[in-house]
C-alpha cells in the first residue's frame, strides 16, 4: 500500500475509534447515573445509546467509504446497515406484537 492509502485507512480507523469511544463513555455515564438515581428513563437512554454505538460505527464507516469512492466496500457496509434496519423492523412489527400477546419476560414457558 502507498503511504497516502495507509494514511487514509488510518484516518477512517481513527474516526471509528472516536465513535466507539464516545458511545462507550456516554452510555456508561447514563447507565451509572440511572443506577445511582434509580431512574428508569436514564437507564433506557443508556441502553439505547449503547445499542446505537455499533450502529453509528457502521454509518460512519459507510460514509467514509463513500467519501473515499471505495464503492465495493461501501456497498458491503451499506448491506450491513440494511440488515440492522431489518432488525429494527422485526423488533417493531414482529417481536413487539408477538410479546404483547404472551406473559411477561422470564416467565417459564
Amino acid at each position, binding site marked *: 500500500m502507498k503511504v497516502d492509502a495507509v494514511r487514509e485507512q488510518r484516518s477512517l480507523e481513527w474516526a471509528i475509534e472516536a465513535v466507539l469511544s464516545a458511545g462507550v463513555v456516554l452510555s456508561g455515564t447514563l447507565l451509572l447515573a440511572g443506577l445511582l438515581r434509580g431512574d428508569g428513563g436514564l437507564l433506557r437512554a443508556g441502553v439505547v445509546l449503547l445499542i446505537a454505538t455499533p450502529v453509528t460505527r457502521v454509518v460512519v464507516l459507510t460514509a467514509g467509504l463513500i467519501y473515499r469512492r471505495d464503492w465495493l466496500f461501501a456497498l458491503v457496509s451499506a448491506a450491513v446497515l440494511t*440488515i440492522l434496519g431489518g432488525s429494527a423492523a422485526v423488533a417493531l412489527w414482529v417481536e413487539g406484537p408477538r410479546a404483547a400477546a404472551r406473559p411477561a419476560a422470564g416467565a417459564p414457558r
Partner: protein
Amino acid sequence: MSEFPAALLVLIGAATGLVGALLGLGGGVFLVPLLTLAVGVPIRVAIVASLLSVIATASASATVNLNRGLVNVRLGLVLEVATSLGGLGGSLLSSRLSQRQLFLVFGATLGVMGLLTLARSRKRNVIADLSVDPGLFGGRLREGETAYVYQLRRAPVGLAASLVAGAVSGVLGLGGGIVKVPALNTFCGIPIRVAAATSTFMIGVTAAAAAIPHVGRGDVELPLAAAVCLGALPGSLLGARLSDRVRARALKVIMSMVLLLVGVRMALEGL
C-alpha cells in the same frame, strides 16, 4: 432487579468483560452461564443482558485493537454481513425455543468449539517471507521484533462460520467470537490475534442486530443489564490492554478448557 444485588452484577460484568476482552471475545460465553447458574437469572433475561454487555465489551476493546492496528477492517466488513444476518435470524429463533432447548444448544455449541480449538491449538498461520502478497483480505502483522504476512484462505468457510457465529449470538446471547475466532484461525489462515481483534470489531454490530429484536420483545431487565454493562466497560478496557501479553498457544488452550467445562455444565442444566 431487587432480588439481584447490583454490586455483584457489576463485579460479574467486570470479570466477564476482562476475560472476554483478554481472549478476544465479547464475554457472553461466560456471562450467560454465570447469570443463570450462579445468580439464578432466567435464561431469556440473561441472554439480553449478555448481548448488551457484549456490545459494551466489544465497543470498548475494539477501540484498543483499532489503535494497535490489529483489526482487518476489510475482512471484518465482509464477514459482518454474514454475522449480522445470522444475529437477526438467531434472535428470531431464540424466542421460539424453550428454556431447556436453549441450555442444551448452549452446552452443545460450547463443547464442539472447545474440542475444535483444542485439536488445532498447535498450528501456526503466519508466513515469515515478507515478499509474499497478502492479497485484498490478508495483511501484515508485527509481533515483537518480527514481521509476518498472512493470507485469507477458504473464504467460504469464513463466511459460513460467521453466519453460524451470528446465529449463535442471536439464539444464545453471545458475541459469537467463540465460533468465529477458532474458525478464522484454524481454517482461514488468520493469525489468532488478528482473528480475535477483527472478531471484536464485528461483534458489536452482530450483537446489536441480535439485541434489537430481543429488546423489542421486552425481555430486557434494565437495572440488571445496566449493572452488568457498567462492570463490563472498565473490565474489557483492561482486558484488551493486557491481551498482548498472553501467548497465542496458551490463549487457545485456556479457551478450549473453559469451553468444555462450561459447555458440559450448561448442557446438564437442560437435561
